[in-house]
C-alpha cells in the first residue's frame, strides 16, 4: 500500500511539473502536454490501487511484516555501494584498478569467497574483460593515473 502511495505522490509531482512547462492547448499541445497527462494518469491509477489495497487490507487480518536478515541487507547495500563506487572511481583510477578493487570487494566481501579464489577470480575477470573490450572491441577505457 505504501508503494501505491509513493507512486500517487510521484504522479502528482510529475503532473504539477508538467503543467509548469506550458501545457499548450488541445489544438497545439506544448512541451508540458504529455508529462502532465502522464502524471495525471499515474496519480489517478495509483490512487485507485491505493484505495483497493486499503479496502483489501481492512478486510483481511494484518500480516506480519517481512524483515530482511542483516546479511541480506549487507549484500544488497554493499553491492549497490560498490556499483556506485565503480562509477565514481572509474575516471580517476582508470579501468584496471577500479575493476580490481570493486570485483575484489564483491567476490570477497559480498560473495564470501576465500582470499585465493577471490584474488584469482578478480584478476582473471579483469584481464579477460580488458582484452575483450579494450583490445578487441576498442572501447576507450579511462587509463587513470597512468595516462601517457
Amino acid at each position: 500500500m505504501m508503494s501505491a502511495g509513493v507512486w500517487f505522490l510521484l504522479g502528482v509531482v510529475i503532473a504539477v511539473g508538467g503543467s509548469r512547462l506550458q501545457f499548450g492547448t488541445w489544438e497545439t499541445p506544448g512541451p508540458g502536454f504529455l508529462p502532465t497527462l502522464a502524471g495525471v494518469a499515474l496519480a489517478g491509477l495509483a490512487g485507485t490501487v491505493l484505495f483497493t489495497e486499503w479496502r483489501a487490507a481492512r478486510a483481511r487480518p494484518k500480516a506480519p511484516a517481512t524483515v530482511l536478515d542483516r546479511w541480506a541487507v549487507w549484500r544488497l547495500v554493499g553491492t549497490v555501494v560498490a556499483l556506485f563506487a565503480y562509477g565514481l572511481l572509474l575516471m580517476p583510477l582508470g579501468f584496471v584498478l577500479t575493476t580490481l578493487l570493486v570485483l575484489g570487494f564483491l567476490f570477497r566481501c559480498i560473495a564470501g569467497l576465500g582470499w585465493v579464489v577471490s584474488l584469482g577470480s578478480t584478476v582473471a575477470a579483469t584481464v579477460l574483460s580488458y582484452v575483450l573490450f579494450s583490445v578487441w572491441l576498442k572501447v576507450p577505457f579511462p587509463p587513470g593515473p597512468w595516462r601517457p
Partner: protein
Amino acid sequence: MSVGLSVSLQPANLGYAFAGAVIGTIVGVLPGLGPAAALALLLPISFGMSPVGGIIMLAGIYYGAQYGGSTTSILVNIPGEASSIVTTLDGYQMARRGAAGPALAIAAIGSFIAGTVGTVGLMLLAPPLAGFALSFGPPEYAALIILGFMTLTFMAQGSMLKALMMTAFGLFLATIGLDEVSGRSRFTFGVTELLDGIDLVPAVMGLFGVSEVLVNLEAGLRQQDVFAQKIRGLFPSREEFRRSAKPIMRGTVLGFFLGILPGGGSILSSFVSYAVEKRLSKHPERFGTGMIEGVAGPEAANNAGATGAFIPLLTLGLPTNAVVAMLLGALMIHGVEPGPLLMQKHPEIFWGVIFSMYVGNVMLLILNLPLVGLWVRLLRVPYPILFPLILLFTLIGSYSLANSTWDIHVMIAMGVVGYVMRKTGYEAAPLVVALVLGSLFENALRQSLILSGGSFSILFVRPIALVLMVAAIGLLLLAIIGGARVRGRALGLVEVGDD
C-alpha cells in the same frame, strides 16, 4: 536475382557474412553491447571493403545480434536489446527450471525459420509493402503505439492497473530531456547529461539485469536458489517442438509486417507475438512461469521484424530504427543511395544483401545450435562467481555507450528502482516499452491533434487508425474481463473451465 546469388556466394562475401554473424552473435550475447553499439564501433572497418562486402558484414552483425540477444535474456535475465525483453519473461524461467538448453535451441531454430521466411518475404514483397508503410501518418502511429501499450497491459502477469501505471511512468521518463518541437528542456534540473534524456540501454540493464542480481542476492547465494540443480537435455523434446511450431509461424508473419513500420516495429512485434500466444494458449496463466511458446513466438517475431526493417531501407531509403539508420549511413558512405532506384542502379547490392541473408541465417543456425551446450555450462558456474561478472559486464556495457560514467549511475539507479518495483509487484516491461516508444508516441499524438484541431476523433475516422484503436480497446476489455474472471474464480463465483 541471379546476380545477387552469385555475389552472395563469392568467397570474400561469404567470409564477410560469416564474420558479421559471429561478431553479431557475440555482441548480442554480451550484456549492454547491442547491435547499435557494435555497428557504431565496427562501421569504420567496413570502409576498406567493397560496398557489397561492407553492407553484407554489417547486416550480418544486425541479425546476428538478434540471435545473440536472446541468449542473455534466457540465461541471466538481461535482454541483449529491446526486442529481447519479452524473451526474459519465460525464457529465464525455463532456465531456472533447468530447461535453458531447449529454450536456447528453440530461440535459435525459431529465429532461423523466421529469418529465412522473412528473407523470402523481403524478396517478394519489398516494393508494395514499402508503399503501404508510407501511408502511415501521425494518427496511425499514435494508434499503433496505443495498441502496443494495451498489448503490454494484456500481457501483465500481475495487476493491470499497475501495468498501466508503469506505462504512464515510462512515458514520463521518455519526456525527460529536450522537447523536439519547442527545444525546451524538461525535467533536466540543470544536469547537462539529461538533455539527451534517459538512454534505453542502461535503463534496461538496470531494470532487468541489476535488479535480478539484487533479488537473487537478497534470497541468498546458493546456486540452487537461482537455478535448478539439474539441467536437463540440451535440445527440445518432441512435445516442445510441437508446441513451438505454430507460435514460430505466427511470430514470423506478425514480426515481418510489424518490422516494416518505422519506430520500433521489431520491438512491438515481439510483444504482440507474446500477447497473441498468451491469448491463444489453453493455459494463459502459466505464461511467465516458463512456457516455451513464450520464447518461440517472440524470438521468431523479432528476427522476422529485423528482416522486415530492410524493406523500407532498401526500397525507399527509409530507416526504421537506429540500427538500420547506421546501415543507411554505411551505404551512403560507400556512395550508394538506397531508394526506389537501388534495384535498377545497383542490383548486385540489392540482391546481394538479400541472398546473403539466406546464407547468414544458415550460418547463424550452424553457429548457435552447437553453442547451446557452451552457454548452458555458464549456468553451472557458481552464482557467487557469476553475479560479479554479470555486474561487471553491465557496468562496461553502460560505460561503452557514450564513454561516460553518467550512464553507469543511471543503470544503478534504475537497478534499485527495478528491485523495489519487483518487491512491490510492479513490472518493468511496460515501463521500458513506454520509454522506447514515448518520443515517437508524443510526436505522433501532438501532430495528430494539430491536424484534427484538438480532437481525438482523428484516431477513429481514419481506417487504419480505426482498426488499430478497435484492437487496442478490445485487448483492454479482454484484460479487464480476464482480471474479473480471476477475481471471480478466487471468490468461487466463476466455474473453472467456464471459458
